[in-house]
């Protein structure tokens, strides 16, 4: 069994309930947890991915031997600053709503000649997806501190949000789980892991605003596509295809619910 670390505020609650720990002791435990987090926040290993991503962004690659520097992430070719804060959004050239990763696949294909299918088919963390991790880290770092600002104007964006809402509530698999089973009531947790209530702005930003993130427990950088993929795995659903509309719709639902919140990506998660 894969062991996962505990969430300390909850640990604290348990300790308090079970052993009637004094308030002062409880406070010091909370302080220690805060201290732990502060200590690991210094030097987020995401920075290593971000550096590699900047290199990949500027390095000619693929059959066309071109860089990604002219990639249009929605704010015009080559503009990276604040771009991730506005995704997902509708793109005229592809006539679809795209999240960061599906948009990057479009850029890789059109600019560099790297087939999107080769990225879709790769395993997480290896080959073209390893490059994708780094590029994503680079791009989202350039939205750190920005407010989520996702558009709802285009009919396809509105539609994607509604699709996302349905996807969020969609139950399936042998456990009857949907995202909503765990993420639609405040204050809930699995074991000691807090579950953000994605249906509220506060909950949505506490999820959407911190992913992509470096996961301390696995020592890996996870993009939002990988985060969603693992949620659906634990829901016991089949494998969501990388960059598929179901995953983009879920991102659209989370992002719009998080609109106005401050982005902290790349985050550092336990």
């Amino acid at each position, binding site marked *: 069994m894969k062991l996962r670390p505990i969430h300390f505020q909850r640990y604290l609650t348990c300790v308090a309930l079970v052993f009637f720990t004094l308030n002062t002791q409880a406070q010091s435990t909370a302080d220690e947890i805060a201290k732990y987090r502060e200590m690991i926040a*210094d*030097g987020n*290993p995401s*920075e*290593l991915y971000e*550096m*590699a991503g900047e290199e990949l962004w500027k390095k000619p690659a693929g059959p066309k031997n071109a860089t990604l520097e002219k990639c249009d992430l929605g704010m015009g070719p080559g503009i990276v600053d604040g771009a991730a804060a506005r995704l997902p959004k509708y793109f005229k050239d592809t006539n679809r709503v795209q999240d960061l990763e599906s948009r990057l696949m479009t850029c890789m294909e059109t600019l560099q000649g790297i087939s999107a299918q080769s990225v879709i088919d790769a395993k997480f963390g290896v080959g073209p997806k390893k490059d994708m991790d780094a590029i994503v880290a680079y791009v989202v770092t350039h939205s750190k501190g920005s407010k989520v600002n996702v558009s709802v104007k285009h009919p396809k964006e509105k539609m994607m949000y509604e699709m996302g809402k349905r996807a969020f509530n969609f139950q399936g698999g042998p456990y009857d789980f949907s995202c909503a089973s765990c993420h639609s009531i405040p204050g809930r947790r699995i074991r000691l892991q807090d579950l953000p209530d994605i249906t509220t702005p506060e909950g949505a930003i506490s999820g959407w605003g911190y992913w992509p993130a470096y996961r301390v427990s696995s*020592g890996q950088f996870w993009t939002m596509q990988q985060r969603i993929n693992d949620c659906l795995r634990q829901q016991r659903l089949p494998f969501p295809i990388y960059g598929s509309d179901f995953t983009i719709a879920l991102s659209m639902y989370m992002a719009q619910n998080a609109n106005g919140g401050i982005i902290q990506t790349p985050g550092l998660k336990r």
Partner: protein
Amino acid sequence: MPDPMRIRATEKDGIVDVKILMRHDMETGQRKDAAGKTVPAWFIQNLNVKAQGKDVFNAHFGSAISKDPFLNFKYKGSKGDKLTVSWLDTKGEKRVDELLVS
């Protein structure tokens, strides 16, 4: 070649604060992969930091230094010092990065 390090070095009151992040899996030799096979030990063993060509810090790691190692130390130096940071792992792979203290 291994991925580059992320190094920050800033001088204040004659003390240079150096923070280094290294990209390395730091395999302990105890972890099993998805197929249940033991992943052999593979980790950074030596880290050396020179300022202006002179040793200012050395470290020896075991496999229990966390993945993607982070290290912070300080030395007496100045702005503009040329730092040379190098590591070497158990497979003999190495990485050398340089930067100027700001």
